[in-house]
């Protein structure tokens, strides 16, 4: 009879000091660790479930406005500061860490149509229904001083939007035409128009900063070149575009939030076909903002929800809604790419996590490793039906849910009708038009 003895060398498992890490002996022989795919599958399933369990995106609601929040602006240098303009002409500056309003200004009579901070963060500009452009200091007035704008420009027409240049002391307003202003002057340096409709929003390209994009209420998106003081191109879509946002990492891509419930990502060099049509909203999309990483964007809609879309996907990865949140008018993605803010009709600004199940605060290295692993597992098994089902499942308000059903039926019937028409007409007379091309009416040079 052979006697088997256990013999162990303490060097293999005893730490030299108590501060050493524990040695975990591993044997990577694959025969000792069978069933790798099923085991990882189960892990992926669990990770997906846990992600849903921990998905608690809502962080805070900033209340204090006395009318609907019409516009939001980020501070370019500080993550904690947010500016918001309301429909009663009030501008508030918020501190996000304290979740408190730090300053309130009665800036305009009527709506505050647009707000933007200067690139250095020392002052900000507002435009309102009272046909004025006002510049304000970011810091509050001293004790006993009146709250007064640094500069007020009285215009001839109503300004509907404003954006500041990313490097130079130049800002652009829109209304009847797009005006480029030097900060030192009271008249615009140049104004560009093409057609005679009111322009509702203007945005500077953050990378090639001389390019501007605007959208007018005659359903078109116009691009301008500030240096040559000329419009570049115009694309006419099915319906009106409410606003556009440039991708901060890809100089020629921008996304347009359209009234026809969709968002369109364009390559500005090829406007005849959008790069991607993002559809999931069930009502007009009112605002869009890119994540600073340029990989995702968030859109606010009239359907009382905000959605997060990956840039290259046509369907949203996340939808946020609250019972009390009404039509969302403006939305911003914070500059550290971790949070989303949205201002809505019912006078509140809400703060959300960009990743619903992300743990806030400091993570230990093990936590981080586990997190990464789970993320990769979810990615790996994302096509498996159970994982997919759990990952995609969202509770939606009844209104949105029924709207989705309804629109699906509508789309289906439209598709069926087109198919029937194609079937019963001469071959080739009813061409197949891709979804991307369908919504572009024309490109005007």
């Amino acid at each position: 009879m052979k006697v088997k003895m256990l013999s162990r060398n303490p060097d293999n498992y005893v730490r030299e000091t108590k501060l050493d890490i524990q040695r975990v002996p591993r044997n990577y022989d694959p025969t000792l660790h069978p069933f790798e795919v099923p085991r990882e599958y189960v892990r992926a399933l669990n990770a997906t479930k846990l992600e849903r369990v921990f998905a608690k995106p809502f962080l805070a609601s900033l209340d204090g406005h006395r009318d609907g929040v019409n516009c939001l602006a980020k501070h370019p240098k500080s993550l904690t500061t947010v500016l918001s303009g309301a429909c009663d002409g009030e501008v508030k500056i918020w501190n996000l860490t304290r979740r408190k309003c730090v300053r309130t200004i009665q800036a305009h009579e009527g709506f505050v149509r647009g707000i933007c901070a200067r690139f250095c963060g020392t002052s900000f500009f507002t435009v309102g229904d009272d046909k004025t452009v006002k510049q304000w200091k970011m810091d509050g007035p001293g004790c006993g001083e009146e709250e007064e704008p640094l500069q007020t420009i009285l215009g001839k027409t109503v300004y509907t939007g404003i954006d500041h240049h990313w490097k130079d002391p130049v800002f652009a307003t829109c209304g009847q035409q797009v005006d480029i202003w030097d900060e030192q002057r009271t008249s615009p340096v140049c104004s560009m128009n093409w057609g005679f409709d009111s322009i509702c929003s203007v945005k500077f390209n953050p990378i090639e900063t001389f390019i501007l994009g605007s959208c007018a209420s005659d359903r078109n998106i116009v691009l301008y070149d500030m240096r040559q003081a000329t419009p570049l191109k115009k694309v006419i879509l099915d319906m009106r575009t409410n606003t556009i946002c440039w991708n901060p990492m890809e100089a020629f891509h921008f996304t347009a939030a359209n009234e026809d419930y969709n968002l369109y990502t364009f390559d500005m060099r090829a406007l005849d076909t959008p790069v991607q049509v993002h559809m999931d909203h069930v009502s007009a999309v009112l605002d869009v903002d890119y994540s600073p990483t340029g990989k995702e964007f968030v859109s606010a809609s009239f359907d009382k929800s905000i959605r997060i879309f990956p840039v290259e996907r046509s369907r949203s990865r996340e939808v946020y809604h609250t019972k009390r949140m009404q039509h969302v008018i403006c939305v911003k993605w914070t500059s550290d790419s971790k949070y989303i803010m949205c201002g809505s009709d019912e006078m509140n600004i809400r703060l959300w996590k960009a990743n619903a199940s992300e743990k806030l605060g400091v993570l230990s290295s093990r936590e981080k490793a586990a997190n990464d692993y789970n993320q990769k597992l979810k990615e790996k098994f994302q096509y498996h039906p159970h994982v997919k089902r759990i990952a995609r499942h969202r509770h939606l308000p009844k209104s949105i849910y029924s709207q989705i059903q309804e629109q699906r039926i509508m789309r289906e019937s439209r598709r069926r009708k087109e198919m029937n028409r194609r079937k019963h007409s001469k071959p080739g007379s009813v061409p197949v038009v891709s979804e991307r091309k369908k919504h572009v009416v024309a490109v005007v040079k």
Partner: protein
Amino acid sequence: MHATKAAKGLLALSQQEELVDLPTNYPLSASEDEGDGDGERKHQKLLEAIGSLSGKNRWKSAERSEASLKVSEFNVSSEGSGEKLALSDLLEPVKPSSSLTAVKKQLSRVKSKKTLDLPLNKGEVERIHREVAFSKTSQILSKWDSVVQKNREAEQLVFPLEKEPASFAPIEQVFLDWKARTPLEQEVFNLLHKNKQPVTDPLLTPVEKASLRAMSLEEAKIRRAELQRARALQSYYEARARRMKKIKSKKYHKIVKKGKAKKAIKDFEQLRKVDPNAALEELEKIEKARMMERMSLKHQNSGKWAKSKAIMAKYDLEARQAMQEQLAKNKELTQKLQVVSESEEEGGAEEEETLVPDAVNEAQMNADGPNPWMLRTCNRDAQEDEVQADSNELPEPVAHEFSENEGNEKPEAEEDVLLKEFEERRSLRKRSKLNQDAKPAGGQDSATKEVLSELKALSQKLSKDNRLSKKPKESPAKTVLLVQDEEPAPEEEEPLLLQRPERVQTLEELEELGKHDCLPNKELPGAAVEGEQVRRNPQEKLKGKKKEQMISLQKLLTTRTPSVTSVAVPTTVEEQEDEGERDQKQMIKEAFAGDDVIKEFLKEKRETIQANKPKDLDLTLPGWGEWGGMDLKPSAKKRRRFLIKAPEGPPRKDRNLPNVIINEKRNIYAAAHQVRVLPYPFTHHQQFERTIQNPIGSTWNTQRAFQKLTAPKVVTKAGHIIKPIKAEDVGYQSSPKSDLSVMQSNPKRRSKHQKQLKSSID
């Protein structure tokens, strides 16, 4: 329309050229200089004259008086005529007059030049501008293509993209808000503080600075060299001392001791010569030490330690030796200083004393005269030794000597006897043990002989020394005893032996001693052999047993081999190891003796094959066209006719695998977890399967690989503002000019736009 316009343009141009080229004293220009009305009239006349000259356009010229839509300054119009007005028409009338050659020339020059195109309308122009600007912008933007592509395909993107430049704060600033936290840091901090170590350059304490100032360079160099040498020397001596300390050689130590003794003697001699009183004092000191020793119970085996050792001594050789050593020490200490009896050389005696101050007592005792008590014990010892040597079975007990040396005055007979018995028994045990030990240590007899011869040589040498130095008499028994005592570990005690040369007196005694030594040693081998015999016997017995066992195992193997032969495994090497396994197999076989698994399996397989076979369809209707009723079967013919044979299904996958059943039915429970269609980016199912089959967990991958596999695609840091990508971030050069300055340096467009703006405001 077009033509007129062209002409107009041309004329305007020609006029311009005229303005430039014509000399001021030219008549035409002079006429122009005149008043408007006058000039007009004259011009009219001129034109009329030209008209009359040609005689062609008379009626046209009459029409000219009417208000025309297009009025030019030359009143030249082809309107209504439907003809084109060519330059030649204008030149024709000029031909004859030589005064107008200059004009002619100029006009011909104009004619040779190309005409400008018609300026496009505003909308067209703007469109062209837009297109140009657009293509320019697209070109500028297309430099980002590669960057976008790279970022989209990147394994990992870390935001913010721009690296924060490492800022180097001056060290004082860093130190301002730094505190020593850990004890080590505090210690270091204190040290630095104590030395007033400055943190910045020149990093010298005030003391160091002062010393630098105090010493010149050469001095410092010399001093440094000295210090270096001293350090080197010190280290050398240290090393030497360490080396010497490590030396195990007894001979060396012997020599060293001798040297020391000699030195001591010399010193004493000198002392005696120089200062006899001091020498006497020295002697007294030694004497005093002896007395103290005699008085005290030190080294007399009466202490706690000694008692514990006495108990241990029964079982432990070392303990016994330790006790013996202690006793020996006691003896040495209590021996009286030898007073030189015969010779008056006090110095010599003293010399001896200093040489071995501890070990001189006996001689003195001898010199003092025969101490009957001491003598008695000595003699007795000797006798016992002799007895022991003779008998060889019973080496004289050591504890016996203790008991006598302990200095207990009264002879406790009973106790003594008891102790003696104890010791005897113990020594017996020890002897046998020793014999056993001796055998494996060396070549049995030869080894012991060698030891013996060595001892002999030693003793001879000693005797020689003694004779030379004319050592005083000494009881032979003592030496014998000593030697005998040392016998168990002769090598260890060599230096002790050598330390007392003065005790061995005569050659005869030494011879005797040699005999004594010899005898037991001679006797030893016999005992050893006997012991061996005894020991060998059990071994042989064991061997026999083993053999028996082996055989029995062999038997087992042979009985079993037939059943194992089919498994063609080279078992020769692992036979021994296989024993256990085989036993286990046997056990399992016994345990599951009843059930035949293989048969069951085959049966199961047959059943499943049968169940999965497509069934024949029997459409026979009993009673149709035939008699029906109980126990009436449809005819075979009919059955054959209406039986629809099922088509042969595809061959089973397990038809060539006898011990496998492959279930070819689709498992719906598993299917619920499987991907039904190939997902988008993959073009072949193998691609997709490969991505699934490669595990990414740390269970299957090394730490490094795991980290690499699970690295997230986008990494962002909390609390860091991510700015839009810049040209500098990706290595492009951004335009040095600001957009505003570029715009303002474009005056034409700007002015135009301002004009536009003005018009729009108006």
